[in-house]
Structure formats: structure tokens, C-alpha cells
């Protein structure tokens, strides 16, 4: 595992020379904190956090992250809605990775239809998982 992380980090550094910027959107502070530590430790640049859909849209507009790690269940707009709106930002649209503590199968075809790059279960979150979805 660590080897994979190591390789990813090397490849990223080699190819882009800069770490990829990430916005974490989740209403649970504990998850946001853990995800930030995890992703930063794997070389991602966590540029910001948002606790609901609307503040997520604002953060994207302000921070222009390359990746948005977007929780499906949010207090106001749900993750699919936020993903759809982000997809409308032609050219400036970040890569959206949906995440949830629920199983992907619980959402049927919603993930594909949302315009997101993919879905990663919260318990399986890792930099490698994000990169594999991006590629």
C-alpha cells in the first residue's frame, strides 16, 4: 500500500511538479479532519473544506480545486445536485469524486448520471483511490 502511495506521489511530482489541490465537502467535521490528514500525508494539497452544498459551490468558485471530494449526503443540496452544478462550469469544472459511508450500490445509477468522475466509499478513501478514478 505504502509503495503505491509512494509511487503515486513520485509520479505526480514528476508529471506535474506540484501537488493536486483538493476540496473536501462533508458535514461531519471528524471525517473532514481525518480525510485532510490522510490526503495531505499522501501528497495532496487540501485547499479547503466545506460543510454543505452551497458553501462547497462557493469554495470551488473561490479556490478552483482540481479535485472535489464530495459527500453524497449534505444538509442542504445533496452531493449529486452539487456535482451536477459543478459539471456545468465548462472548462473550470473540477474533477468530482463522490464519497459516502453507504455502499455505491445504494445509489443505483445516480453516480454515473451526476457527471462525477467516480465514487469512493469513505472507509476506502486514499490518494491512490482518487488517482485511479482520475485516470
Amino acid at each position, binding site marked *: *500500500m*505504502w509503495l503505491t*502511495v509512494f509511487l503515486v506521489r513520485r509520479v505526480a511530482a514528476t508529471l506535474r511538479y506540484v501537488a493536486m489541490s483538493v476540496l473536501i465537502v462533508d458535514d*461531519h467535521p*471528524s*471525517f473532514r*479532519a*481525518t*480525510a485532510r*490528514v*490522510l490526503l495531505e*500525508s499522501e501528497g495532496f494539497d487540501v485547499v479547503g473544506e466545506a460543510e454543505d452544498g452551497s458553501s462547497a459551490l462557493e469554495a470551488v468558485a473561490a479556490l478552483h480545486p482540481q479535485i472535489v471530494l464530495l459527500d453524497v*449526503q449534505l444538509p442542504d443540496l445533496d452531493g449529486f445536485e452539487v456535482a451536477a452544478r459543478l459539471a456545468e462550469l465548462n472548462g473550470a469544472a473540477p474533477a468530482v469524486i463522490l464519497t459516502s*459511508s*453507504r455502499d455505491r450500490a445504494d445509489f443505483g445509477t445516480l453516480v454515473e448520471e451526476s457527471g462525477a468522475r467516480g465514487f469512493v466509499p*469513505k*472507509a476506502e*478513501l*486514499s490518494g491512490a483511490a482518487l488517482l485511479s478514478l482520475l485516470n
Partner: protein
Amino acid sequence: MRLLRTALWPVALLAGLGAFALILTSEHEQTPLMTGVLTLLVGWSFAISGLVAWSRRPANFFGALMVAAGLAWFVRAVVAADNAFAFTLGQILQYLVFGILVHLLLAYPRGALESRLARVLVVAAYLEVTIVQLVYLLFERPRAPGCSGCPPNQILLSKNPAVADGILFASRMGGIAIAALVAWIYTRRWRDATPAARRVLGPVLATGLLATALTTIWLVASSVDEDAGRYAFWATMTGLALVPLAFLAGLLRSRLALANVGQLVVSLGQTARPGELRDAIAQALGDPSVKLAYWLPESESWVRIDGRRLPSLASPDGRNVATIVERNGERVAAIVHDAFLHEDPELLDAVVAAAGLALENEQRLAALTQSEARLRAIIDALPDLMFRVSRDGTYLAVKAERTGDLVVPPDQLIGRNVRDILPREIAGPLLNCIEEALEQGAARTVEYEYELELEGFPRFFEARIVPGGEHEVVMLVRDFTERHNSELERQQLQAELRERLEELQASRARMVEAGDNERRRLERNLHDGAQQRLVSLSLSLRLAHAKLADPEAARTILDGASQELAAALEELRELARGIHPAVLTDRGLGPALETLVGRTPLPVEVETNLEERLPEQIEAAAYYVVSESLANVAKYANASSARVSISRENGAAIVEVADDGIGGADPTLGSGLRGLVDRVEALAGRLEVESVPGRGTQIRAEIPCE
């Protein structure tokens, strides 16, 4: 036969004259004039009466017998002949007339001998006056004693005074016996005769009785003294002459009665009161037992004048019989009368003919009386009130079983107007209906329903109005209060039922909704709480694993993970308790309430008065009542303390939660209280909330547990 009767008139006349001449010219007749006149009188009276009776009733043998008696009487005069042979023949036949008289008296009035005794007596009488007389003459002296001038006996066989006297004595005794028996029969007949029979038979019975008595006296007297015998014989002859006269008198009386009948019936006319006609007919027939029966073709039955049915016309003993009266070929009535009146058919026919019209009138009256009685019975059988009301609304007649069904008693109703009796709002439409009914004519019925307060209760009536004449109606009023009330009750019951059903449906919907909400809440709690913490824990562990090279960083991460885990466990416990308190299942309501109170952020006093555990469902309901109530107290009541009491009274669990807070709770608003109401009512219990603003809230649940 008619020719014979016609011929007999001159025969009787000539025979009488001949006999009279023979007696007058007789040399040995001691009292020729007296005997001659009497012979003539008696003979003619029998012969003439007999011929009259015979021609009136040719089938009756009685008339012929009378004629025979008359002729035999003249034959007897031959004894006055001076010629010895004629004299002897006269002697043989001189008593034949008595045989015929016995026959005649016993055959009266029908001309036939109706009893065995009568037949025996007649045969005996005929034997005595013929054979015994003949035998007597065989032994008689040549000349009868006391008759010196009499011609000699031509058939004398042997003069034997002893035998002759013996025969004579026996013959007289026999004659006395026969006369006495005839007299006895006549007495009995008189005694047994009905008044009508006495009227018809009376004269003949009386004179017959007299004649037989005189005959007896004559027979006794002549055996004692010759002169006495002669006088007694004259008396007997006179008595016998009365019999046909009595018969004629009876006929005359019938004729007179006929005249009376016509007069009586005419005088009665059509104005006869019931019973008067019967009395008139009874008087005309001389039969007080007369009854009248009227034929009703419709019911094919005989009825009396009052319309009551008569089971049978004739009496079972046959003493009373019925003569049917017909008019124009139609049966009208029957006169039930004494059977003896058939002996007087002319009278009966005359009465029937004369009374026909009057009887026909009474027949109609009887039919009317009967149909009126039927109508009355129908009216009486109807439970409805009935009124006759004139066009202007005046009550003409009323029929009510209960005075309470009327606004005023019947005697105060008649003559008054509907407007004065009934409220205006009823009287008005009612008068319109009356007018409508009268305009529409007889075939139509107008119906009208109204409500009236009687005896302090509202009553509902429906009136049916039928024209009963040109200016009046018959109004049938039926009380349908009972039907109305039961319909009302039914509707109320139905509405109540519908309301309860709707309530039940709403309650079920709320319970389903509450269940769904609860599940949603649980899912959310699990997802947002324990699951998120476990996700973080998972990530932290992976991170710690990655930081193994940096022990300090790894420890920090693991410390955080440990706290996450503790928090996740606590949330799971809380959640489980929310689903169902384990302590309630394991330890019962008391300990469960203590736990609940322990978590409530204000002092709560608990009082339980239960000797044993309540049924599981009721325990749960009681727990949630307390739990929800205390939660509400903590959230909204702003109370300083609360009190919980659980008890069991009269087969029900009573749960009470009271606080000293601000009050003003509304069970119809909050979903929590509403859910409690549903939960309690699902167990057939009742939840009451009293929450006056400023006076705290009292919640009381009563749940039946037997």
C-alpha cells in the same frame, strides 16, 4: 174425484131428506121430530163440512171421512124404517157412524192415523160397530126392549137374552174404553200443542173432546137407564154436530186472519221499525214463536235483522220450520214458524205474499246493517286517528283510541276549526291539502306530514286525506314518531360509527407514519453518528498504520481513534435505548422509570402502586407515556419539578404525569402527544391532557388491563 165430490152434494141432500122423512113417518120412532131434526143437523153438518174440507184439500182424507160420517149418520136412520128387513139392516149399521167418528177424530188433522194406538183404536171401533153389533143381533130378542112397535129382528139366530146382554155389556165397556182413550189422546194433544197448533187445531180438539166425553156418558147412562140413555144420546148427537161446526169455525178464523195480515202489513208499510214486521207476522200467523231470517246473496247466508248470522233456519226437533219467501224469483227472507202452520197453508201463503215487500225492505236493511257492522269493524281495527273535516276545516267527527293523541279531547274538537286547534304552520298546509283532495275527486289521496308537540313530546304524523263527500273529507292520521325516532337514532349511530372509523383510520395512518419517522430517525442516527465515527476510525487506523515510522504521530492518531471508538459505542447505546429500553423488558416498569427519571434534568417524584407486573404491551405504553411526557416537561414546560404516578384501579392501569410548569400544551398539535393518544387508544384506553396556561400540565392515561 172432483166429480164424485160434486155428486155427493145432492146425494147428501137427498139422503138427509130421505132419512128425515123416514124418521117422521116411522111408526115405532118414539120422538120422530126430535130425532129427525137432530139426524138432519148432525148428518148435514158432517157432510157439508166434509165436502168443503175435501174440496179445499183433496189429498187430505179427513174431508172424505167427514162426508162418510154424515152419510153413515143418514144410514143410521134406516132403523126408523117399519119394514123388518130395512129395520134389521138399520140395526146392523146404526153404530157404524161411531166407528167412522173415532177414525175421523184420530185422523185429524192430517187425515192419516199417525200412531199405533190410534190404528188399534180405529180397528177396534170398526170391529165393535160392525161384527160385534152383528153378533149381538144374532142373539137379541125379537124386539128391542122399550120398542114395542119395532119390527122383528130378521137375523135372530137364537134368542138368548143372557148372551145378548153379555155382548151388549162388553160392547158398551169397549165403547167406553175407546171413547176414554180417544179423549185421553185428545187431552194429550192439546197439552203438547204449541200456541200456533192450538189456534189451528183448538176448535176441533175441544169439540172432539166434548163429543167423546158425551159419548162415554151416553154409553154409561144407557146401560143404567133407558130414558137417561136417550137424553144422553141427544146430547151426544148435539156434541158430535159441533165437531164439523168447529172445523168450519177454524176455516172461518183462518179467512179472518188472512184479512188481518194484509191490513197489518199495509199499515206497517215501509216505515216499520225493526221487529215490528215480525210481531205483525207472528200475530197474523197466530204463532208467537215466529222468527224472521233474511237472505244475503253476497255471503250466501241467513242473517237476522241486526245483520248477525243465523246458523240454521229450522229447529232440530222439527217443531219449527222455515217457509222461504221469494220475490221476482229471488230469495228474500224466511219465516221460521211452527210446523203446525203447514196445516193452514192458505194463511201461510197469504202472509208470505203480503209480507214480501216489507220483508224485501228489511232484507236490504239487514244487508245494510251487516255491511255497516263490517265497516265499523274495519274502522275500529285501524290504529289511526280518523277525522271527518268539512271543506272550511271544521271537525265533524273524530275517532281516536287515546285522547292523548289529540290536541284537545274529542268533545271539545267537534265543531271547531283546524285553524283554532293546530298551529298555523300546520293548519295552513293541511287546509290546502283538504282543498286539493276535494278538487281532485274521490280517487285521489293527498298525503301530508307534520310534527306536533303532544303531552310534552314532539310527535310526527302523516295525514292521508280522501274526499268523503262534496264538501268534506276523511282524514286518516298516523303517528310515525317511533319510525321517525328510530330513523334518527340510526342516522346518529351511523354518523358516530363513521366518525369513529375515520378516527381509527387517522390513528392508524399516524401510527404508520410515526413508525416510518422513527425508522428514518434511526437510520439517520446510525448513519450520522456511529457509522461516521466508525468510518473515521477506519481511516485513522489506516493513517496510523502509514505513520508507523513516526511513532509519535501514530500515537496521536491512535488516541484520536480511541476517542472516536468510545463516542461511537456511546451513541450506539443511546440509540438502542431509544429503540426499546432493555431495562423495561428485563426489570419491569419501576426500574425503567427510575432510569428515565435519572436522565430527566429536573426533580421527579415517582409513585408506583403495582403488586405485580403489567402486561408487556401496557407496560410499554405506560413507559412511553411517562418518557414522552417527561421529555416534553424538560423541553417546553419550564417546570421546577414533576410527579409520576402509576397505579392499578378497577381493572385499568392509570398513568399520571403532572408538572408545575407553564401549561398550555395541546395534544392535537404535537406529534409526540398525538402519538401517545394513538398508542393508548390502540389498547382501548383513554388519554386525557389538562393543561391550563399557568397551572401546569396533567396527563392521565387509563388503559384497561383485564
